[in-house]
């Protein structure tokens, strides 16, 4: 590498720290606000240092909820979000890996037609077909259900394409060796292909979990019962009331709780996350 001079290096450090500060500031503010008294905040007198209401605020947020119209404990919302995110991630991986397996390792009539049928879904996010999908989910009596929350979001091709791409790189000889070793389609899938796909599955899981957890428009539309709210929907409802009544410490605590699981996943499983992000965009 070309050597950097001293000044250049300090400049780089400085710019990066400024960037980090810009990125972190709103979150810092949320942390501070979640530990202060609502009355002080509402007066516009908020201090930039943490206050003393930490336990109180988080206890109320997790187990009681706001005192306003939606009195749903955030813990319950988080549980809903968790279930939805897991269903989306696991469901998508499960149905994608077996369909990719069929498409790569079998020859059958309409194989390419099926592949394209799945492939085209890559192009259209749920937002563009939101009301017709809503109507179908309503017709199937899936409103306010976990199935209704997750199924329409599973209908996409990213994971299928990723697995297909990966399977193509698995050497043919591995299948041939398995066949000579007496393994049929199920055994080969279970004993060889699945263990080899572990890293890919993990990377995909990380990305899909984050995407699932962060879903907003779809849950907003199809959940009407308070106890089925996800945390993203819940937080929006907390500031629906007129400004004066918004309980900002609780809102900020909820915001922080809403970002905690996905941020945790990104930071702790950084390698898998980066890999998953790059692979799914290919």
């Amino acid at each position, binding site marked *: 590498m070309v050597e950097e001079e001293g000044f250049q290096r300090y400049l780089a450090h400085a710019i990066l720290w400024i960037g980090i500060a810009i990125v972190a500031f709103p979150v810092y503010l949320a942390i501070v606000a979640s530990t202060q008294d609502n009355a002080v905040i509402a007066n516009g007198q908020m201090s930039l240092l943490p206050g003393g209401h930490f336990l109180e605020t988080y206890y109320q947020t997790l187990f009681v909820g706001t005192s306003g119209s939606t009195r749903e404990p955030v813990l319950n919302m988080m549980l809903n979000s968790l279930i939805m995110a897991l269903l989306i991630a696991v469901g998508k991986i499960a149905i994608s890996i077996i369909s990719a397996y069929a498409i790569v390792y079998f020859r059958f009539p309409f194989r390419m037609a099926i592949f394209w049928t799945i492939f085209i879904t890559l192009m259209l996010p749920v937002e563009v077909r939101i009301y017709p999908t809503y109507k179908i989910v309503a017709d199937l009596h899936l409103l306010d259900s976990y199935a209704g929350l997750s199924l329409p979001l599973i209908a996409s091709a990213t994971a299928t394409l990723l697995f297909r791409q990966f399977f193509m790189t698995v*050497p043919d*000889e*591995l299948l*041939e*060796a398995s*066949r*000579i*070793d*007496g*393994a049929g389609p199920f*055994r080969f899938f279970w*004993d*060889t292909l699945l*263990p*080899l796909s*572990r890293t890919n599955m993990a990377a995909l899981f990380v990305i899909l979990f984050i995407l699932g957890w962060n879903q907003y428009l779809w849950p907003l539309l199809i959940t009407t019962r308070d106890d089925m709210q996800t945390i993203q929907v819940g937080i929006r409802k907390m500031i629906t009331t007129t400004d004066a009544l918004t309980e900002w410490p609780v809102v900020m605590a909820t915001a922080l709780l809403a970002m905690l699981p996905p941020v945790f996943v990104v930071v702790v499983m950084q390698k898998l996350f980066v890999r998953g992000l790059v692979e799914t965009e290919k």
Partner: protein
Amino acid sequence: MANVTLRSVRKTYPGGFEAIKGVDVDVGDGQFCVLVGPSGCGKSTLLRMVAGLETITGGEIDIGGRVVNQVEPADRDIAMVFQNYALYPHMSVYNNMAYGLRNRGMAEAEIRTRVEEAARVLELSPMLERKPRQLSGGQRQRVAMGRAIVRQPKVFLFDEPLSNLDAKLRIAMRVEIRKLQRRLNTTSIYVTHDQLEAMTLADILVVMNGGQVEQIGNPLDIYQKPATTFVASFIGAPPMNLMPLRSDELTSQIAGADGAGIVGIRPEDFVITGETASGGVALGLTVEAIEHVGAETFVYGSRRREEQGVAANPGELPPGEVIVRVPGTTGPAIGERIRAVAPRDKLHLFTADGRKRVGP
């Protein structure tokens, strides 16, 4: 134990490409058969058809008295060693070898005995718990062998198993494979493009070209009496010198060459001498290059009409390059003119199209 018989086996791909154009081979029980030929000659395809990895378009493949055309690979009682070894990357060495046995429902105790015995023979015992990526190329190769051995199959199939190893290891493994096969006395079919490997390993050598068998026989017979010019130039290194004959030049030098259009002489059958050859061939050469290999020396000479001062025989062959092998390190100098003589009984005569041997 079993013999393997191929009866007019054919393979045509859906696109119409004829990969195997009718092959008959009979490998006796416990024999080591080597399929050799240039890349694309169909040798691997043929092996994979025996394994059951490729469908058979025509003819019959018979293993141990049973036609296996429609039999699944797993049920043919064969084991295969792949060029890239195809080890299961996520399984330990032990499990790589045990997998096929488990799939057949063998008792774990019996599996353990077999795997440990194979590991002992192949000197893999300390590595049974390692993953393939922690092994060297040679060790991986031995694991692939082990996976085949533990099965105690009727037939071993080898698909260029040594081509991913470096030269030194390749020779060592070649000897090991041969010793192992002798000891187990298991019928084996081995594919390679390396003629030296083929010569040293084979009980029966099958030389293939363009989806057809050029010649079958024991390696020395093939070396001494190649049936076609293809075999003549493919087996032996450096290759046999092949020179077209003109009818008017035949009479004086080569006796009994009726119908021959090509004469072949191996580099080692030449003698550099001043004497004439009765019934044989004498060539006048200008030395162009010399390769010292140590035990022997290869002389590359060119024959040119205008330089007939050296050998003015009327039966002089047409221009071209000739390789002459000289034992030891002494040889002519570059630019020197020499006379290379080969006796009559060392000449190989072929028809002009090279498809048929003429005479003995």
